[in-house]
């Protein structure tokens, strides 16, 4: 009995090792953008980013998409996204043209501001001077990319229509 149990446990351990290896699990602990194209669903996002100014400057996925100032927040966000992505990918419940979640958008917006701090502060001081915030016609709460629409993922983006997203070298 004892022998069987131990051997089953060893087998389970080995099997887990196999799953870790198959799913490239450890790659998700890195900050390498290639980890994001372990599943092909993100090829579009990877290809558009790679051809963008952010890609050329070497700004990695997580530098925009995850909290950058707090270790715990970062891993909390990473776990939430990781779980949602695994569920959607395993069950095939994602749409061809994916849209960022509100929680994700909030994080990206924070990162836009933190990198482009000097420009944003100028915009802010200008609008503080000239905008009447009590006027309901003045739209507040818009995100950077409501105007900068093609930054950094291009104008046309979906799994099936994004240009140049076939044959990503790094994904072979």
């Amino acid at each position, binding site marked *: 009995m004892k022998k069987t149990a131990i051997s089953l446990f060893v087998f389970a351990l080995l099997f887990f090792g196999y799953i870790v290896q198959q799913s490239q699990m450890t790659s998700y602990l890195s900050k390498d953008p290639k980890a994001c194209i372990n599943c092909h669903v993100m090829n579009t996002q990877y290809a558009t980013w790679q051809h963008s100014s952010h890609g050329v400057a070497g700004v990695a996925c997580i530098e925009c998409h995850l909290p950058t100032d707090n270790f715990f927040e970062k891993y909390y966000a990473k776990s939430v996204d990781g779980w949602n992505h695994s569920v959607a990918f395993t069950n095939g419940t994602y749409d*061809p*043209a994916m849209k960022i979640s509100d929680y994700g958008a909030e994080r990206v917006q924070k990162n836009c501001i933190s990198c482009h701090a000097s420009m944003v502060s100028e915009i802010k001081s200008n609008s503080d001077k000239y905008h009447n915030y009590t006027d309901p016609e003045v739209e507040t709460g818009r995100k950077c990319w409501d105007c900068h629409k093609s930054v950094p993922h291009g*104008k046309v983006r*979906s799994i*099936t*229509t994004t240009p140049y997203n076939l044959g990503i070298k790094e994904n072979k």
Partner: protein
Amino acid sequence: MKSKFTFLLIGSLIAIVTMALLSANISERKTEKVELNKTPEISGTDQYKNDEWQKYYPRQYSSWMKTKESGDILDLLKEYPQLPIIWAGYGFAKDYNAPRGHYYAIQSNTNTLRTGAPVDGKTGPMPTACWTCKSPDVIRMIERDGELEYFTGKWAKYGSEIKNSIGCANCHNNETAELRVSVPHLNRGLIAAGLPTFEESTHQVKRSLVCAACHSEYYFKKNKWTDADGKEKLAKVVTFPWKYGLNSEGMEKYYDEVGHTDFVNKISKTPILKTQHPGYEMHLTGIHGQKGVACADCHMPYTQEGSVKYSDHQLQNPLNTMDRSCMNCHRESEAKLKGIVKQKYVRKTQLHIITMDNLAKAHLETAKAMEVGATDEELKAVRQDIRTGQWKWDYAVASHGAFFHAPEEVLRNLSVANEYAMQARIKLVGVLAKHGVMDYAAPDFDDKAASQKLAGLDFDKMVEAKLEFKRTLEKEWNKTAVSNKTWNQDAFKGTDNETAYSKTVNGEYIRK
């Protein structure tokens, strides 16, 4: 020594057997490579049967088959009883439904009362040209008989030959599957307009031009010719009026120049231009067209099935495929975009109906003026206004989707059309007053049957004749096509044969 030789011998044998197996495997793989790289050739009569392409392009075929889902019959004459008056004396006053899927092209063409009730290959109201956009068999007929012979004679002449609905061979080369246009009139139109031909165009433009081959304004140009036996014949050839531009003004100028009139309105004796469906021309003037978006980008969106990507051949309203059509480029929510489209439709419809009412009234008031003795000379300017107004109204709405493809152009044409209709009616007040009629009000047209009566149509008679045709000649056509092996009837099994006027019960056609 001896054992060394044994070793060498056995070693060599093993090596030889291994290499033999390997070389067999290599040649097998090489054959596979050649086979895999072969483009399927669908040749002979088979290339005109869509179900033959299914063997090689199952996804494209099965999505094309789904155009069957767009099968509802919506009687537009019932919806808009002004139409039989506006089109009195023309086929569209008899029967006119909202468009259906490509799957139904032949069925709708055969069932509509417009194609009448021929009793043999030489009777019936319509010419052969009416088949041109309905079937890949048209390519076969033009190849067999020559273009001019194809365009000569009555619609019923090809009843037993043209059975496969618009499909694969119409847009695809049968050896390479590359896009092609299989009818000559598109390139003629493009050349007349000073535009690059289909072959000179980029792939992105071709993804619209294959649609433009049919979804455009056209007329049947009369062409006298002499056949090989010296017999004089008259061909009616599908022709695009694009010489002076792809817009309503340019086309009207062209039609006036060549003296073309589609029909004379029976009620008002006005020579009328019937717009067909300038979908492509309209699309070019709209924002999507100007930005280089092709028809196929929205109507045939790329689709992913497992690890295979292909374009969806279920041509339909892109609002059914928003996630693959609109959302590639637009950042707003689907609900918001749908709301915007709806708004465009409501705006169009308001002006559409106002203009249509005024045109119908102008026809009836002209009839009244004729009745009380107005001369053709007195009514000349009135009829010219009605002709231009009706052409522009029809141009704006005939392609159905234009309210979305080119909303500004639709509203512009409708406004100008309504201005012409109103000008005609103002002139008519004067003409009628001159002949002593001061308070004439046109009869109501809120009912299809009443309007068709005003147009001098006997609906019951048309339906009875059509049903007789379906019970006799159409069945013969089907039998002949099956025995000629040019049509696979099974591929169309289970098709609902409903029309605006009849239904099928146990294979028998019954009046509704």
